[in-house]
């Protein structure tokens, strides 16, 4: 059960493979559900050049850990992983990956979505977009 904040570009698919081979016992899981959130080059009708992710160091880690712990309490899962980017990102860059391993698929699907919804509503991250016309803060998330 691991959550990490990254300040540099990462490849979510490679991270998940590495985590899986280091932490998940072969043959014990039958289901792996994952979600990757990545930067779009277009938002609310405007082209976006870059985006800067700010967070509250300390509180962010606490909440990501808390959310992972809650997922383990609510579902019969084997392990979960969250990686979230901070700093400046560019279109197509991954921002977040959430992954859940479990014996059966229902728990993996449910818990993976729970991690994302809770992360988006409780983890203290904020996005500022850089447009041709200047900068603007993202004011709310898209609906879950």
């Amino acid at each position: 059960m691991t959550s990490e904040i990254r300040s540099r570009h990462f490849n979510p698919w490679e991270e998940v493979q590495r985590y899986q081979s280091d932490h998940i016992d072969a043959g014990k899981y039958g289901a792996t559900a994952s979600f990757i959130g990545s930067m779009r080059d277009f938002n609310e009708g405007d082209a976006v050049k870059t985006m800067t992710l700010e967070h509250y160091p300390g509180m962010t880690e606490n909440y990501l850990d808390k959310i992972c712990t809650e997922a383990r309490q609510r579902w019969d899962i084997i392990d979960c992983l969250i990686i979230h980017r901070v700093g400046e990102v560019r279109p197509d860059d991954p921002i977040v990956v959430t992954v859940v391993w479990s014996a059966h698929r229902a728990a993996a699907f449910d818990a993976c979505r729970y991690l994302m919804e809770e992360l988006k509503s409780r983890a203290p991250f904020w996005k500022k977009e850089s447009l041709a016309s200047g900068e603007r803060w993202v004011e709310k998330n898209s609906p879950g």
Partner: protein
Amino acid sequence: MTISVKFFASLREQVGHGDASVDASDDLTVQQVWSDSCSITMPANTLCAVNMEYVDRFHPVNDGDEVAFFPPVTGG
């Protein structure tokens, strides 16, 4: 005998500073820490944390606490 105060994201820009400290006193609340540390009215959608846990604005604040104010979160 101080409380450390933090403002994040758009709220930091509105308030004009990211950090502040206010003197501890009896019966201090989050709302009072806000008033003591900046000169604008707290926006209705402001989120408050004491020692990195979400609280409401009536939550008590004790000496040594870290109080943070920020807009709705938009990660993920």
